[in-house]
C-alpha cells in the first residue's frame, strides 16, 4: 500500500515539474520568457501588493528594470514571495533568477552562500524616531532619554554602543515583540523608538498622526540592502549590476521617464552612451543596444523609483539621506558607462 502511495506521489511530482535545460541564466530567462524574481511577503515600500493586487516597491522596480532591459517589457516578471529562511535556497536551487528581498549585504553571506550581491539598492540602518513636540533634532540630544527597544536584537546592542561611544546615557524600555514596542512608544512610555529606519518609517505611517513624529537623521548601523544573484554566472551578474548602475547613471545625467525620448537627441556624450545613441554597451552583456533606454522608459531612474515608493511624498516618507547620489551628499555612485 505504501508503494502505491509513493508511486502516486512520485507520479504527481514528476508530472508537474518544470525542467529547464541548464545553460546560462540569461538564455534560460529568454527561453522561458519571464524573469522569476524573489520578493518579500510584504514590506511596505520595498515589495508589497498594492491596491490593485500588483507587486510594487523599490525592490520590485529593480526586477522590472531587469525585465525591461532583457525583454523591453517590464511586465515580464513573475514574483515568488519568500521567507527570510528560504530565500537563499530558492536562489541557489534555481527557483528564482534574482533575489530582491530586503537582503542585508554581509561578508559571510557574500562569501559563504554561493551568492553575489549586485549592489546596494537601499542603505538602511538603525535610526531613532521621536515626537516632534519634544523638540529633538539630532540623536546627539538624546542623552537620558527613555528608549523603547526590542530585546535580544542587534538593535539593542547597536543603541548601547552608540550611546556609549558618544558618552551619553539612556534608559532602555525593553519588550520582546516589535508590536509591543510600537504600542509602548505610542502610549508615551518612552521618548524614543529605535529600529531600522525603513521599518520606523512604515510603522510611523500606521500612527493616527504620522506628522507628529520625526525620524532623526542619524543612522547608527549599516544595513545595506541589495539584490542578489547566484554565483558562477558572470554574465548574469553583470546584467544585474549594470541594470542597477544604469538606474543611478540615468538619475545623475537627469534622464527621467518623462524626458527619455527627448534625451535621445541630447548632445551630452554620456547620455548618448547611456541611451545607446553612441556606442553599443548592451550587446556585450547579451542585451540590446538600447537596454538602458528601455529601463528608464519603463521604470524611470533610481531617484524616480525612490520617490515613488519610499520618498518623502509617500506615506513612508523617508528622506534620501545616504541614498542620495554622491554629488548630493549621499553614497549612491555609478561607475561611468563607457
Amino acid at each position, binding site marked *: *500500500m*505504501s*508503494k*502505491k*502511495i509513493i508511486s502516486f*506521489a512520485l507520479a*504527481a*511530482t514528476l508530472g*508537474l*515539474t*518544470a*525542467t*529547464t*535545460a*541548464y545553460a546560462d541564466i540569461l538564455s*534560460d530567462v529568454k527561453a522561458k520568457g519571464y524573469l522569476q524574481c524573489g520578493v518579500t*511577503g*510584504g*514590506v*511596505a*515600500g520595498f515589495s*508589497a*501588493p*498594492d*491596491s*490593485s*493586487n*500588483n*507587486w510594487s516597491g523599490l525592490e520590485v522596480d529593480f526586477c522590472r528594470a531587469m525585465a525591461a532591459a532583457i525583454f523591453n517589457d517590464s511586465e515580464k516578471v*513573475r*514574483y*515568488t*514571495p*519568500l*521567507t527570510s*529562511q*528560504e530565500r537563499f*535556497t*530558492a536562489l*541557489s*536551487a*534555481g*527557483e528564482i533568477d534574482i533575489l530582491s528581498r530586503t537582503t542585508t549585504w554581509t561578508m559571510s553571506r557574500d562569501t559563504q552562500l554561493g551568492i553575489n550581491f549586485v549592489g546596494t539598492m537601499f542603505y538602511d540602518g538603525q535610526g531613532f524616531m521621536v515626537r516632534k513636540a519634544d523638540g529633538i533634532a539630532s540623536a546627539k540630544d538624546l542623552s537620558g532619554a527613555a528608549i523603547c527597544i526590542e530585546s535580544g536584537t542587534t538593535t539593542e546592542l547597536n543603541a548601547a554602543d552608540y550611546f556609549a561611544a558618544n558618552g551619553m546615557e539612556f534608559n532602555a524600555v525593553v519588550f520582546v515583540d516589535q*508590536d509591543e514596542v510600537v504600542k509602548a512608544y505610542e502610549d508615551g512610555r518612552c521618548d524614543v523608538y529605535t529600529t531600522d529606519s525603513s521599518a520606523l518609517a*512604515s510603522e510611523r*505611517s*500606521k*500612527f*493616527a*498622526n504620522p506628522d507628529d513624529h520625526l525620524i532623526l537623521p542619524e543612522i547608527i548601523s549599516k544595513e545595506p540592502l541589495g539584490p542578489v544573484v547566484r554565483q558562477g554566472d558572470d554574465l548574469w551578474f553583470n546584467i544585474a549590476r549594470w541594470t542597477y548602475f544604469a538606474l543611478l547613471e540615468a538619475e545623475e545625467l537627469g534622464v527621467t521617464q518623462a524626458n527619455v525620448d527627448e534625451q535621445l537627441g541630447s548632445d551630452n556624450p554620456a547620455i548618448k552612451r547611456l541611451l545607446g545613441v553612441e556606442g553599443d554597451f548592451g550587446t556585450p552583456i547579451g542585451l540590446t543596444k538600447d537596454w538602458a533606454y528601455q529601463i528608464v522608459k519603463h521604470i524611470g531612474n533610481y531617484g524616480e523609483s525612490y520617490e515613488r515608493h519610499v520618498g518623502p511624498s*509617500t*506615506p*513612508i516618507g523617508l528622506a534620501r539621506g545616504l541614498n542620495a547620489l554622491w554629488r548630493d551628499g549621499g553614497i549612491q555612485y555609478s561607475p561611468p558607462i563607457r
Partner: protein
Amino acid sequence: MSETAYVRTEMVPSLPAPSRSSGFVAWLRKNLFASVGDTLLTLVGAAFLIWAIPPLYSFFIGNAVPPGGTVEQCRVESVGACWAYIAARVNFFIYGFYPISEYWRPNTVFALGALLLIPLLWPRIPFKRLNALLFFVVFPVVVYVLLNGGMFGLRPVPTEQWGGLLVTLIISLVGIICSIPLGILLALGRQSKLPIIKTLCVLFIELWRAVPLITVLFMASIMLPLFMPQGMTVDKLLRALVGVTLFSSAYMAEVIRGGLQAIGRGQYEAGASLGLNYWQRMGFIVLPQALKHVIPGIVNNFISLFKDTSLVSIVGIFDLLNTIQAATADINWAAPTQAVTGYVFAAAVYWVFCFSMSRYSLYMERRLNTGHKR
C-alpha cells in the same frame, strides 16, 4: 339526602403557581442565584460582561469605520475596526494575486464546487454515485485546467499568483479528499498480516506523526530543492499539497484504526464465512461500521487540517492568513487598527468554515445513529 354531595362534582380551578416558584424571579432564583456559590458566580459573570462588552462594542461597531469609509476616517486616535479596509481589499483576500480580469475563473470554480458539494452532502438528493464521480474525479481536473490555464485559449496563471481563500480551500479540500482513502489504506495496512505491508505502513504512519507539520513544510520548501538536479523545480503549491496530504493521511490512518478496533472479531469472521474476499469484507461489513464510529475523530482531523493550512504561509504561499498579513504592508490603508481588523476578519472566516464542518458532522452522526449511540 340525595342532594347532599360529599364529593365535588367539578375540579378546583388551578391557581397560578406561587410567585416564588414561577415567573422571571423564580427563573432567576433557580438558574442564577440558587446558592451562595451560584450568586457569586453570577455576579462575577455579570461584572465580566459589563467590563468586556462596551469596549468590544465600541471597537467592532461604535467607533468602527463601516465598509465604504475612507482611510482618513480610519486614521484617527482610538478608532475601532477599520471595516472599510476589509471591504476595499476583500478581493485580495479571496483571490490573492490572481489577475483581476480572470476572476471569473476562480468564481466558476467556487460556483461549481458549491453546486457539486451541496447535493453530495444532502442525503435526500439522488444520483450520489454520479455526483461523487463528478466531484472527486472530474471536478479536480476542471479546477486545475481552469485555474492554471494554458489550455483551451485560457491565459496561463502560474500558482504563485493564486492566493487568499482560494488557496486555503484548495489545500484543505485536496488534503481532506486525498487523506481519507490514503488513511483507510494505511489503517488496513497496519492491521494486515503481511509483514512487509504492515512494516511499511507502520513506518510511514509513525514517521509522519512524529514530525511537526511545520517541519514537513520547511523540508518541502527548503530541503527538497537542494536534492533536486539543478534547474528542476517542483511547483511550490504542489509541494505543500503533497506535504499536507501525507501528513494528514497518517493522522487519518490512526483515527480509522481506532474505528476498526471497535468492530468485533465476529463481524470479520461472519463476512469470511459468507465467502466474501478481503476487500468485500472490508468494504461491505467492516468499514461502514468502523467509519461511522469515528466520524467525530475524522471531522476533528478535517477541522485541524483546515486550520493547519495557515502554516503554509511560512513557506511563502499566499493562503488567506498570509494575504491578510501581506496586505498589512499596504501603506495606502496604513491605520492604527489595520492589522487587528485584518486578523479579526481572518478569525471570522476560519470560524465560519470550521463551525459549519462541525455542525455537519453532528448532523451526520445523528443520521447514521443506528443503535450504537451511548
